């Protein structure tokens, strides 16, 4: 537990030197006020972000947050309602998808059912009039890269989900596109395969250095893959930053909730000095860090289950919370325990020994690991 506390928030891994790609690699992709409305509502509102060549950016958010809309706007599959997209000094939002030269991995893979694996992978090269010999060579290379050379003559229907996924990725990288768009590519795979493919995608990005925009609702995927994460909510950017930035310093209650701060206790701001804020939750007083000094009013206290420690009997530190145990789940190394505060709010924490149902325990958390935010506005 202790090593997790200190070690849980590591900084980002070193970024490997990207291969130099000459002309193909752009310097920056600039989204400027990109907006897409469906009827009266903006699915995506005023998205402005600059992506550097070679970067791996994840758009993270729940369904309806506008992340897929953003991706489709970039691909050219959805026209913008407002805003511009620039690739270096070339404006591309006015181009049809086939003239943008990007590649995309679709959520359902969208492999052409009437073409075999070889032709599926070579489709983009063929459309772009790459000579036949070079096409064959590059298709072989791409299939070797995703370890599917032996399936070149199969049809998509003959492949397993994971194999289809790898074909879809091969089809995207074979074009060596300036930008690869990935729309929840792992969401149709089972848990084990998802982990394998995640590593695979990371490896391919390290090897090839293709600029990638990756849409997902899975925080683990975003954190493990991306150089930079853009968290979207209701079509608006909530926060953008490196994985460690958004993980360690979430700026809003929504981002915290999305990135593992599973416990939320609502209360009122008691006092707030600088970034240290005390919140009254029922009879409890919890001290934590807020993004800035907060005015009195409603507040949400966010705590990761990992950071709550059982401390029955001993010590008199701050942030002690009495709980009544209601649910105990076996979680492998630890138990996931659900308890209720005297005020009736639910908290989850990890315990190495299973507490008995109905027992009373006291848990504590370092003020360092408590985050205080203004509540998320319901929409």
């Amino acid at each position: 537990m202790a090593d997790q506390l200190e070690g849980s928030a590591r900084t980002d891994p070193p970024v490997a030197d990207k291969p130099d790609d000459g002309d193909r690699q752009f310097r920056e992709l600039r989204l400027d006020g990109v907006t897409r409305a469906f009827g009266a509502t903006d699915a995506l509102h005023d998205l402005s972000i600059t992506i550097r060549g070679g970067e791996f950016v994840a758009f993270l958010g729940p369904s309806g947050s506008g992340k897929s809309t953003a991706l489709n706007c970039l691909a050219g599959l959805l026209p913008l309602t407002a805003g511009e997209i620039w690739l270096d000094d070339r404006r591309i939002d006015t181009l049809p998808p086939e003239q943008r030269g990007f590649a995309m991995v679709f959520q359902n893979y969208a492999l052409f059912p009437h073409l075999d694996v070889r032709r599926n992978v070579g489709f983009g090269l063929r459309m772009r009039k790459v000579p036949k010999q070079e096409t064959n060579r590059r298709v072989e290379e791409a299939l070797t890269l995703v370890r599917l050379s032996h399936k070149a003559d199969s049809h998509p229907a003959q492949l397993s989900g994971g194999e289809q996924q790898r074909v879809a990725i091969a089809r995207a990288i074979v074009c060596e596109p300036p930008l690869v768009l990935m729309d929840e590519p792992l969401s149709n795979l089972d848990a084990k395969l998802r982990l394998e493919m995640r590593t695979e995608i990371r490896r391919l990005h390290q090897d090839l250095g293709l600029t990638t925009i990756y849409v997902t609702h899975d925080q683990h995927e975003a954190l493990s893959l991306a150089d930079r994460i853009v968290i979207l909510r209701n079509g608006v950017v909530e926060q953008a930053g490196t994985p460690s930035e958004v993980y360690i310093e979430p700026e809003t209650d929504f981002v915290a909730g999305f990135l593992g701060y599973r416990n939320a206790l609502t209360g009122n701001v008691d006092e707030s000095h600088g970034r240290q804020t005390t919140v009254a939750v029922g009879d409890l007083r919890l001290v934590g860090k807020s993004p800035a000094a907060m005015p009195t009013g409603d507040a949400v206290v966010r705590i990761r289950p990992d950071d709550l420690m059982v401390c029955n009997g001993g010590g008199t530190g701050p942030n002690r919370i009495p709980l009544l145990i209601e649910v105990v789940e076996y979680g492998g190394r630890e138990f996931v325990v659900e308890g209720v505060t005297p005020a009736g709010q639910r908290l989850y924490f990890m315990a190495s020994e299973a507490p008995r149902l109905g027992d009373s325990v006291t848990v504590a958390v370092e003020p360092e690991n408590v985050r205080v935010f203004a509540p998320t506005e319901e929409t």
Partner: protein
Amino acid sequence: MVTRTAAAPPASLPPLSKRLAEKGVTPRLLLLLPAVVFALGLFVYPFLYGLGLSFTTEAGSLLGNYTEFFTDPYLRGTIWLTVRLAVPAVLIILVTAMPLALAMRGAGRGKQIITVILLFPITIGTVLLSDGLLDFLGAAGWVNRFLLDTGLIDQPLQLIHNYWGVLFAIIITDFPFVFLLLLSYASGIDPSYERAAAVFGASPRQRFLRVTLPLFAPGLAITTSLAFVLAFGTFPSALLVGEPAGSTRTMGVAAYSEAFQQFDYPMASTVAMLMAGVELLVIVVILGLRNRLVPTLSSGRKG
């Protein structure tokens, strides 16, 4: 139909009923009996009867009727006259119904209204439709009056009681049928394939030729076959708005006049058999074309 030899099985084998059940032979198959009787009585028997009739001649030679059909230019010519109507009609219907069907898949509320309007010709029947065409396309009909009044023509166009009248009638009656079939096939094509093709650099033309058309081909082939059979068998409109003694003497008209004007039933059966033969030939050609267009689809198997 399924005759079973009830040979006593060796003692080691499971009972016969169990072994049959594993192969799908269960008492439930008896439920098929009415359908089998129906098919035999109404389709198989008349067909075989007609086939036998076509080989019956007064002279006693087996192929006498067929020889006569092909030596008599008046009879032989009906094949060409029918093809001349059916093929252009089917092509015109396909060329108009296909883009409409592709454009309307996924369309929302408007889809139902347009479908109902397009379905209307099916509901009114051939005879009423022909009657309407006589008024609409006749010398004093709307079309001619419009063209005369606008000064586009000086003399009324002859649009009925000839080739054109029948062509129009076939197109109007068969279009909704073809459209509905194509719409259901088109709706089954996942639009994400075309989106993927677009992202990977395919122009609208390439998307159609390389993705949409191959995926559409099986449905297109079936629909074309059925539309051709429908158009080839055209009979009421050939009589009512055509020129049944001349340019629209289709095989259907020829079979009718052999049977009910000449009372030569064997020859009428021969014409009907040849009709079926031509239709079968065309269907084989269409399915062959389909396989050439998308050879990979038929070879794609699972596992």
